[in-house]
């Protein structure tokens, strides 16, 4: 049984370490990270986005501001408070569907870490919960636990799951 649990943990952890794109096997269904150059370019943007359309990505490089340099809003006062209300910019019309993607390498790493942590903790919790179930059943079988006013005290004792 211990070997089985060890195997389970090994499989879940190694599953998490396999690149997610490789598991999904097809573009457009799995979160995919753009190539390294795009990630680096996106990291230079204040928001760190990579989800723009190719047309937007091909925009002149002067649009790209160095990290940390946030462009001032039109009509903004030096104090940071807005003066006259700026005209509302109409939302840009998208020309292609949005494929779910990691916004940057940091988010990709966070999801990977979360994924490993998730399955690892599920495996560990299941391992301990199984002990706990066994102990609870043992206590019940030993009649340490008796439901108050139970009409079924004389019933046969329950078998354990998997026995």
């Amino acid at each position: 049984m211990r070997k089985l649990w060890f195997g389970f943990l090994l499989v879940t952890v190694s599953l998490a370490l396999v690149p997610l794109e490789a598991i999904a096997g097809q573009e457009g269904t799995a979160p995919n990270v753009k190539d390294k150059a795009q990630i680096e370019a996106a990291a230079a943007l204040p928001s760190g986005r990579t989800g723009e359309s190719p047309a937007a990505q091909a925009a002149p490089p002067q649009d790209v501001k160095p990290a940390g340099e946030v462009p001032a809003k039109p009509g903004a006062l030096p104090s940071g408070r807005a003066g006259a209300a700026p005209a509302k910019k109409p939302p840009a019309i998208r020309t292609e569907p949005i494929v779910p993607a990691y916004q940057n390498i940091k988010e990709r790493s966070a999801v990977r870490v979360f994924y490993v942590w998730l399955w690892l903790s599920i495996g560990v919790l299941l391992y301990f919960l199984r002990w706990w179930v066994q102990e609870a059943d043992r206590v019940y079988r030993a009649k340490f636990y008796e439901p108050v006013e139970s009409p079924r005290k004389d019933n046969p004792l329950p078998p354990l799951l998997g026995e």
Partner: protein
Amino acid sequence: MSARAVVNWFVDRLALKPILDYMHKKEIPQHHHTIWYYTGSSILLFLFIQIFTGILLALYYQPTLEGANASVGRIMTELPLGWLVRSIHSWSATFMIATVMIHMLAIWFTKSYRKPREVTWMTGFVLLVVSMMFGFTGYLLPWDDLSLAATKVGTNIPKAIPVVGTWVTQLLRGGDDVTGDTLTRFFIFHVCVLPLLVFAIMVIHILLVQKEGMSIPLKDEVEKKKLPWLPFWPNFILRETMIWLVLLGIVLTLSVLFAPSLDLSADLMAPAPEGVKPEWYFLFLFQTLKIFPANMGPVTGEFVAVVLILVVIMAIFFMPFLEAKPLGKRGKLVTYGGILGIIYAIAMSIWSLL
């Protein structure tokens, strides 16, 4: 002050002692169908996930013609892990409806709807319908071409119902056609009306389950067989926790690997796109409507199909009264009917996808 003292204070002030006593007394029968008991609690897990992720999405979603698609796009591209939250919401909805269906089929085949659990069955069936309504209203919210076309088809179906049909369609659409008003209306149904309905019915359902206790297999009941029992707390709860953990892992894994994409914003003036399909749990109904001819004598084919579907729905709803003797011939008929129904639904769904 110890933690135990704090807990005791809350138990005392909130008068929780009767509930805790009840949980300690409650017992679960152990037999070869015990596994189906876990489906009921799994639905609760998915409902909790839906509420949590739904609240997160609602913080940024805009139920307007201009903002709906753009706000979902923003959730997916600008908010940290927004695409994952949306994906979890979508996958959890799928799992929830699938689990409700499995739960109902388990009740159907074990004939647990029999006396004295008639109302429990009926409230459970209403919960299934409400869950599907959640899916139907939620499908429109991203406001893309496919969801718009599917909603047009879906909201057009009630028109075939005699007398109230047109009124129901107008109530759903907020007018004669699917517009921005429909979107706002669906959003209100999705986040306000249906959740309230679910909570009200679920409370009744759970109270009835507690009142009548868990059903045991029909054969064991007839033979008056003494079954082993398991304490609900902690033995059953611990087993349940193990299943919850595995399900949570599966939902999160699928959400990461197969996150849904977002199509372009719907154009109200554009013709319906090709290959309009509803969500998987409506496929068999969709295909059923499609196979009926346009006219069947003096009435339309759609009218006949809708009336037939309504008759089947009512028959399922009133099942405990139609089939009061599960061991009789009618009981067997219900079992075979269930098997045929599953085969029909699967076959129609596959046909619809081809």
